[in-house]
Each structure stands twice: as C-alpha cells, then as structure tokens.
C-alpha cells in the first residue's frame, strides 16, 4: 500500500492506495472531487523527494506527499 499525505492547507487525513506508479495514484485521487483543485496546483514528493514524472514506480510502504502552493516569509 502507498500512503498519500496532504500537506498544509489541504487539511485532509492521509489515505492508503494500492498503486504501482504515480500515475495510478493520480487516477485514484482524481476520483475524489474535493481534491480536484488541489491536484491542479500541488507539487508532489515521493518519500520526501520532489518528483516531476508520473512514471515514477512505487513499492509497498512508499509515501506520496501533495504540496499545495507555498508562501513562506
């Protein structure tokens, strides 16, 4: 299982998804209407490393994080 966590203002509890690639995670998350606006603007980390491709492969226990738009300072 892959754990998906929603950081900062998304304010949603983590979910567990059965997926072998980031593309499968994306497909699963798209089924949740409350996530629609966040998927468009969030960046993604896998095990705390930022990623930029849906082809990333995942293994059991991996952690996917959604990082919405930021404003430090």
């Amino acid at each position, binding site marked *: 299982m892959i754990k998906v*966590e929603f*950081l*900062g*203002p998304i304010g949603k509890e983590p979910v567990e998804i059965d997926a072998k690639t*980031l*593309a499968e*995670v*994306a497909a699963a*998350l*798209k089924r949740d209407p409350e996530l629609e606006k966040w*998927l*468009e*603007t*969030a*960046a*993604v*980390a896998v095990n*705390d*490393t*930022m*990623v*930029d*491709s*849906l*082809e990333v492969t995942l293994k059991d226990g991996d952690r996917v*994080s*959604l*990082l*919405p*738009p*930021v*404003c*430090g*300072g």
Partner: protein
Amino acid sequence: MATGFRFFLPYAAVDAMLLISKGPLEVEKIFTRWYGAEHKNNYGAMVSFVGTVREENGIEALSFDLYRPVLQAWFDEWQKRLGEKGAYLAMAHSEGDVPAHKSSFMCAIFSPKRRVALEMLDAFVEDFKANAPIWKYDVVEGKRLYAADRSTPMAGSGLLAGDEK
C-alpha cells in the same frame, strides 16, 4: 509523522544553519549568533534579509505550517550551491502564529566577495518564496485562513492533474 507533530514542537533546530522556531523569531539574538559564528571565518561580506509581519487588512497575525523533510532537502541543495561559490547560508523561519510587527523569516549569506553575496541573496529569497514548503495563513478573529491568493505553486505543480504522457 512529520506532519503529525509539526504544531507541537516548542523550539527546535532542524540543522545548525536551518532554524525552525515556534512563534516569532528572536531576530537580534539570531543575527548576533550568525554574525559571531560566521563572520570570524574570513568572510568579507554578510548579507541578510528579515521578513516582518505587516499590519494590514485587519490581520491579527500570520500563521505558518511547514514541512521539514522537504524544507531541509531544499535548504541543503542551496547550501551546496552556495558552497560551490565559496559562500555559506543560514536561515530561520517561524512555525505557528506570528503577530503583526514580529518577524517570521530571516536568512543570511556569507561570502568572501560582495557580488556573490548580493546576487545569491536575491536568488535565494525569490526561490524561497517559490519553492520552500511553507504555507501561510491569515489569522482573523482567531481563525486561520489559507493565504491562497499570495501563494505560488511549487516547481512541478499540477503533476497529478495531468495525463500520463
């Protein structure tokens, strides 16, 4: 776990040169420590930036969430980039509430040469605004409201909304 405890740590240095502080920064103390620790190392130039919460639009305070593991990785990448130019970086940021006229962010760059320090301060602060995993909220009547209109999607944003290419 990192997200779970991020509101409760009272005060913690993630790294000697990346300081996360619960509430407002003690700017004078941090500056004095940085100046003392790094300015003895034959660096000719120290540039710094301090960000302070402005009183406007009826905001009582700003409040911040941050995600430490990615923040640390982002910071380490900058430290490495500056190291290649002979420079050195320090940063401090608040977590939780920071009232108006108190400071939530400061950073400093130390370098043998002023050009590197000046150029890198600008580049670092702009990348900080765009890519440091920190989220800002206005505190109004005790409620935290995400500052969506002032926020910037990070590099690589929208990945999960796209189709597989």
